């Protein structure tokens, strides 16, 4: 599969009468988008706002972050199986509105959505303080169940991103990157002397509110399987996640999966990136055993020499991570795992819920329990109501001046386990 990603650099977002991209400025007609959102009867109202890097703005509670992309040529369309019909994506040309993001806010579970600060200390911990954010703040109708609300919210965010992405279809990109992913045997024939490396991505699939969708299928219902990493760039994997903000993968993280990017970077030089395996993190032990068995089986069958395994979330998924690592190593495939830590506020506690000597090569996204104080910011988009109850918050954590003390757990993407950030710990 060959995919060209054309990056259109977005310099600003403005509300305007006509939606269009002009000289790198994304003009958005909010009325049109509002009408689109309100087609879903589960929403009572919706508000649009813009948050730019450096502005004194706090966005919370954040549900998802999505990058607008559009399919220019090649099979299928963006967000297959969820927004567009099911057809294999990952080849042809896709345009990316680089620097822009759709941020959806809404309180689904209350404590499982996160914070994005556009300036100050908190901004250093989230990648979305550096993007131009079109923030969509939803109000659901009364008595909507959390599960239905999550679904509506997820789809609304994706639809908006899809619509905005379309504005980039005719624009000439500022930069084009080409990614080639060959069938296994061809890849081995092309690079006979390079180690065969795979990527095992673990996807959060803990229950109705902690889910990830692949071509529209709820990943907890799937066996461990494979796809081309280029498909991921076209939105084949989507977040349906309401879980601790710091280490859930938003849809934006999937679209820009850094492990895939960095493996491609070394592809043909120090390694042969020739397989991508996706597996789940279910709540039943039987599922954990089956899925990790399957992961190991596939790595062995493919004849891989090495694999990077990335986790999503923490707690019981630590077991899935360790099972995957141990079994893949037992299959004779060398592993590096990417995780994050819950070492306590003092940093003195056990970082992971599970451990095994086989996991001798670990990359960490940092200790999620680290406590920081976020300065008061002038504008709040969304609502600050649940700041005490948010995962990583605690009673009385908001001072009179509006500053908030939280664990970085509460910040979107702070300890991301795809290795999206520079944060680490020792």
């Amino acid at each position, binding site marked *: 599969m060959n995919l060209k990603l054309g990056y259109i650099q977005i310099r600003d977002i403005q509300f305007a009468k006509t939606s269009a991209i002009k000289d790198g400025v994304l003009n958005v007609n909010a009325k049109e988008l509002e009408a689109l959102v309100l087609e879903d009867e589960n929403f009572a109202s919706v508000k649009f706002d813009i948050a730019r890097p450096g502005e004194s703005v706090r966005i919370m509670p954040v549900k998802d972050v999505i990058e607008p992309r559009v399919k220019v040529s090649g099979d299928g369309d963006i967000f297959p199986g969820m927004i567009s019909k099911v057809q294999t994506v990952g080849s042809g040309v896709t345009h990316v509105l680089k620097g822009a993001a759709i941020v959806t806010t809404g309180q689904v579970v209350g404590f499982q959505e996160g914070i994005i600060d556009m300036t100050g200390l908190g901004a250093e911990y989230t990648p979305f303080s550096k993007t131009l954010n079109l923030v969509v703040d939803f109000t659901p109708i009364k008595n909507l169940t959390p599960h239905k609300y999550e679904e509506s919210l997820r789809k609304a965010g994706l639809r908006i991103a899809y619509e905005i992405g379309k504005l980039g279809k005719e624009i000439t990109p500022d930069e084009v990157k080409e990614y080639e992913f060959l069938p296994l045997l061809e890849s081995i024939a092309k690079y006979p002397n390079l180690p065969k490396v795979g990527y095992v991505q673990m996807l959060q699939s*803990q*229950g109705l509110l902690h889910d990830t969708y692949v071509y529209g299928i709820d990943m907890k219902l799937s066996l461990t399987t494979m796809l081309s990493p280029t498909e991921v760039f076209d939105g084949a994997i989507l977040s349906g996640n309401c879980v601790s903000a710091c280490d859930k993968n938003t849809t934006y993280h999937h679209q820009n999966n850094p492990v895939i990017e960095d493996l491609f970077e070394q592809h043909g030089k120090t390694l042969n990136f020739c397989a991508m395996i996706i597996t789940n993190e279910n*709540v*039943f*032990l039987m599922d*954990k055993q089956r899925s990790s068995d399957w992961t190991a089986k596939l790595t062995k069958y493919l004849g891989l020499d090495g694999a990077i395994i990335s986790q999503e979330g923490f707690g*019981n998924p*630590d*077991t899935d991570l*360790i*099972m995957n690592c141990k079994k893949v190593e037992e299959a004779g495939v060398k592993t590096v795992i990417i995780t994050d830590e819950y070492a306590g506020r003092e940093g003195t506690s056990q970082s992971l*819920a*599970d*451990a095994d000597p086989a996991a001798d090569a670990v990359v960490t996204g940092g200790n999620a329990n680290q406590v920081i104080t976020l300065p008061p910011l002038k504008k709040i988009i969304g609502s600050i109501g649940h700041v005490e109850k948010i995962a990583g918050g605690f009673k009385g954590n908001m001072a009179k001046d509006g500053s908030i003390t939280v664990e970085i757990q509460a910040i979107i993407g702070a300890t991301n386990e795809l290795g999206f950030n520079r944060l680490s710990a020792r």
Partner: protein
Amino acid sequence: MVKEVERAGIPVVHICTVTPISMTVGANRIVPAIAIPYPLGNPTKSMEEEKQIRRKILLRSLEALSMEVSEQTIFEMK
């Protein structure tokens, strides 16, 4: 937590879904549960059936507490 209760001299049975974590944290008597959001239930079943499931797991737990163990033991459901 389970290890501290054990250390205090009180026999303890750990009912938990992810038994490997239970092994790692050092529980000695382990009884497998149903699923993480509902260790002792199953919302797809009727309330009566659910209670039966809960009863079975707890009866197994009482057995576990009544049995001598010399090392970490998982008491699988019969």
